[in-house]
Structures are given as C-alpha cells and as structure tokens.
C-alpha cells in the first residue's frame, strides 16, 4: 500500500490550494473527493443547453499583483482565459426599493459614485473606505507580508463589529444599507460581523472583480492540473467514511469503497463538523469540544434557481444584481415561511459572454433559506426526492420570482425553464450540515482566538476550508494556504508570495 505525506479529504478550493502548495514543496499528496467531479462549490452543471455555476459567480483581487492573482501565480494555476473582467463602470448593481446604486471598479470610483448619491455623507464615505484599506493591511495571509504581525491591529480589526464602524460614521440608513450589502457574501449580520472580514471581502471585490469565463469547473481544472504536474494525485468517487486513529494520531483515511490511505498528515477541507464525525475514536475529543461543535452556529442555507429567460430584461452579462427589501440586512436571515417573500436575492448571468442582441438569458438566482423548510427530505436520496419536496421548492421559488418581479415586471412570464436547489442539495454536494452556503457563522464570536483550525485535537489532523478562516473562493484559497503553511512553514511561502506581488508591481 502506498503511503503519502498528506492525505487530503475533499476537493474544494481550500483542499486543492493546500494540495497545490504541498505538492509544489515536494510532499506526496493524495486528494480524495466523494463526487465525480472535483471543486466542491465550484461545480457547474448543464441544463437547457446552458452551463450553470453553483458557487462560483465572481471573485476579487485578480488584477495583476493583487492577492488572488499572486496566490494563483504562485500555485502555477493562473490561467487568464478562465476569468473575465467584470464591467469596470459598474460590476455590482444594488437595487433597493427606493434607489439603485452600482459599484464601479476602484476605490476612487466607488467613493465618487457614493458621494454623488449621498452628498452630505462625503466624509463618512471617505473614512469608511480608508478604514477598509487600513484594516486589510494587517492580514499577512491576504496582503502577503512576511513581517511580524501587529497583533493589536489584527485584534481590533476582527473584534470590532461592522455595524459599530458604520454607525459611528453615518446615521444615513440608505448609506448604511449599501455598506452592509456584501454581508450577503458571508452571511453574517452587521452587528456580528468582524469588520476585518468584511473589509477583505470589499477590498478584494472593489479592486479587481472578475467573473468566470468558462465556469468554476475550468478554474478547478487549473488547480488540479497544477497538483498533478507536481506529482500529486486527485481521486474521484472516494467518499471518506472514517479517519483511523492510532495512539491519538490520525493513521489513515478509509473510503467507502474499502480503500485505505495512510498519511503522515491528514488534512480535511470538508465542513469541520463532518470532519470530526469521521474520526473513529471520538474519545480524542473532550466533552466540552463535542458540545461546542454541536452548538456552533451555521451560516444560512441557500436556495438556488437556475433558469432561462426569453428576454434579457436589459441585464448586462458583466454585472451582478443584488436585490434588497426595506427589511434591513440585520433581519435578512430571520425567516418566515417558504410562503413569504425573501428580503434579499442575488442574480448572476450564467454566461459572461452573452451577445448584445441575445434572445435568451440564462441566469442563476439565489436567496437565503433555512434547512428547516426542507428538513423533511433531508434523508431522501438525491435525484429521487418525492413530489412534495418539489412542491415545497416551488412555493419558495414563486416568492423569489415575485420579489425580483418588483424590479423587473415581466420576469416571471419571461421564464421558459428553470430548475431549483435547496439546502438539502447543498448537504448532498458538500456535506455542510445545515446546507449552509458559507460554513460556520463567521461572527466575532467564532473568529480570531475562537476560530476553528488549522490545528485540531488530533495533532496530525488539520482542517481547512471556508469555515476555518473566511468564506468565498478567495477565503477558501487563503485558508488552504494557511493550513498548508502549518505543515511546511508559512513564513517562507509568504516571502515567495511577496516577491511575486512586488514583481507584478504591487
């Protein structure tokens, strides 16, 4: 039997990033993925002759020398044809009941647009974005600096709630709502959200927003190719059902088909709760830890609609569309019933290369929804779920259409076909317990000293993934970097990353 330096469970962006770094450093790695395709939330699927993305709509910090570009370059996984720059004059459209605002690329441009809309708030706007830019500087795994961390700035950035910063600067409710919009990308309400986390998300998006030219699958392929070129292995259809423990250490990983993979290290990019359940000797965890895992809050589940409209409704393929009700983001993740309108939705063109006169418009549309609405069907099999499940999905889909229809009057009638997904679908694809979109709830309470990973109570079992650092593709990639750094030493990697960044003029 072959033994590896590192056996990696799951093939989400975080796992693949760790695998690419470790294999680049000469470690033998073996990635085990349960599905027929690698990538986790990067999965695409085809319907109605169109390709749809699930969790890859856009990413930030991808201009030359910016953090994501630097990291991918370091991994030998940067392929410019995989990405497409979004509309620099307005890539994110935020629609509120009474007004609309579009974020153009670049800090100066965003500040201009906001100041034009909120002239009396010029100082607040200026200060907010300058605080964002200052906050991101203190994160070495984002800014790629190998200097000693200024712990006090880091603590301040992650222990200050977003709402405290915003409310200190402005009392204007509309402006506050705009500055909170990206909470939908991490699923944490402003009073719980660490300012530093929100800052990284905003900074990356404002500086270098890109869509996926050929879907998330193509991005995954670049990572897999890099790993394989380094001699690493990626195995599909390997559902891990046990982490074997010997003398308190992880000895091997078992797959459902009987395969056993020994590793000096075991690294898991699956949801932490799932990872810890795989450990075959639960007594390595204290009752306090088990209790903590049971109680740890999850981010919201998500509902997806993947459809084809016979009209473009003047949607621009190089923009993303956010819709908000007047309910306020603080209440966006409190749910009524599936028969009530969502308070926020996100629409993304499924193709970034639609021609101007196109006669059909493929899109994905997402709104938060709790697992509770669908938990009756939690244990039913994917592809064989009963009719009442489909009916329940229909009920909420109609509410989402109604909501978006308030902004695009003929939206519902223009739909020729669509399919839907629910938190139960997420559970099937990613093993995230509540079908959560962004893993554990990244509140101040679950961040910093209280964050999970990369170390665990099993010394040679490490975890990575969006639950360990911050969510999103960039967050997962940076989590992968940090976890690999735990094995090979983070400082030398940060030094190399810094050199790439500097060489690219940043």
């Amino acid at each position: 039997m072959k033994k590896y330096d590192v056996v990696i469970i799951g093939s989400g962006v975080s796992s693949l990033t760790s695998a690419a770094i470790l294999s680049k450093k000469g470690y033998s790695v073996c990635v085990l993925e349960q599905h027929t395709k690698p990538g986790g939330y990067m999965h695409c699927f085809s319907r109605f002759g169109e390709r749809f993305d699930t969790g890859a709509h856009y990413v930030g910090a991808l201009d030359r020398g910016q953090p994501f570009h630097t990291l991918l370059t370091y991994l030998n996984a940067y392929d410019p044809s995989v990405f497409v720059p979004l509309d620099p004059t307005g890539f994110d459209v935020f629609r509120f009941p009474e007004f609309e605002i579009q974020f153009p690329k670049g800090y100066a441009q965003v500040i201009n647009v906001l100041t034009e809309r909120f002239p009396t708030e010029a100082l607040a706007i200026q200060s907010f974005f300058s605080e964002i830019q200052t906050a991101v500087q203190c994160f070495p795994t984002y800014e790629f600096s190998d200097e000693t961390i200024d712990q006090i700035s880091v603590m301040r950035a992650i222990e200050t709630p977003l709402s405290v910063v915003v409310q200190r600067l402005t009392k204007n409710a509309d402006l506050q709502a705009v500055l909170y919009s990206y909470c939908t990308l991490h699923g944490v309400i402003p009073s719980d959200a660490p300012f530093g986390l929100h800052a990284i998300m905003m900074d990356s998006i404002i500086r270098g927003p890109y869509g996926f030219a050929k879907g998330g699958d193509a991005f995954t392929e670049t990572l897999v190719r890099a790993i394989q070129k380094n001699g690493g292995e990626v195995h599909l259809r390997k559902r891990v059902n046990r982490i074997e423990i010997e003398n308190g250490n992880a000895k091997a990983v078992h797959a459902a088909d009987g395969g056993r993979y020994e590793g000096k290290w075991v690294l898991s990019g699956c949801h932490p709760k799932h990872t810890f359940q795989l450990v075959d000797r639960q007594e390595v965890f204290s009752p306090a830890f088990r209790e903590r895992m049971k109680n740890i809050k999850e981010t919201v589940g998500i509902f997806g609609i993947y459809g084809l409209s016979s009209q473009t409704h003047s949607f621009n393929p190089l923009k993303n569309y956010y819709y908000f009700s007047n309910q306020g983001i603080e209440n966006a993740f409190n749910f009524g019933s599936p028969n009530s309108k969502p308070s926020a939705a996100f629409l993304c063109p499924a193709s970034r290369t639609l021609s101007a006169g196109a006669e059909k418009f493929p899109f994905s549309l997402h709104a938060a929804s709790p697992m509770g609405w669908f938990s009756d069907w939690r244990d039913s099999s994917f592809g064989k779920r009963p009719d009442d499940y489909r009916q329940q999905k229909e009920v909420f889909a109609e509410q989402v259409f109604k909501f978006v229809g308030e902004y695009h009057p003929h939206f519902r009638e223009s739909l020729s076909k669509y399919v839907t997904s629910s938190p139960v679908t997420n559970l099937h694809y990613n093993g995230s317990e509540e079908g959560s979109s962004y893993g554990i709830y990244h509140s101040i309470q679950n961040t910093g000293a209280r964050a999970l990973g990369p170390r665990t109570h099993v010394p040679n079992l490490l975890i990575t993934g969006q639950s360990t650092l911050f969510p999103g593709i960039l967050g997962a990639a940076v989590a992968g970097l940090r976890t690999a750094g735990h094995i090979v030493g983070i400082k030398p990697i940060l030094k190399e990353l810094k050199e790439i960044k500097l060489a690219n003029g940043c």
Partner: protein
Amino acid sequence: MNNEKVVAKVNDVMRRGFEIPADKLIPSATLFEDLGLDSLDAVDMLVHLEENIGVKVDGEQIMKVRTLQDIYTLVENLAAEPGAHIKLDI
C-alpha cells in the same frame, strides 16, 4: 475567600467538560501542567464556560488565566459587574 457557588460551578464545568477527576480540581492547579489541558482545550474551555455561565468572556482576559483560582476570580469579577446575569446553578 472564594464565592462557593462560583467554585462549584467552575469545577462542575471543568469536570464535565474535560473529564477531570474532582480531587484534581484545587485552586492552585495549573490548567496546562496539572490539569493536562493544551492551548486548543483552553479555547474550548472558554467557549464552554461562556455557554454554561451565560456570559461572554473577553479573549484577552482568558489569555492571562494560569490556574483554576484565576478562573474563579474571573467569574467572580464578571458576576460582580452591574447587571450581570451569571448562571451559577448546576
């Protein structure tokens, strides 16, 4: 003189959360050397304590904790804060 209810509550949390025998739970016991916890356990302890007494503990304060006595003092101070609602029932 320690508040007896606080001592009983903290000891109960430690005993149940970390399966530490009652006779080891003496005020001078150091968390790492005597009680065998490590830095990851310390975070679990913080969260476990917070959930059990119903109060958030400042991360910086917990960093300074070395012995069981330090935890008693920490919880006593929290309990003495105006408006504090600490759950001390076992």
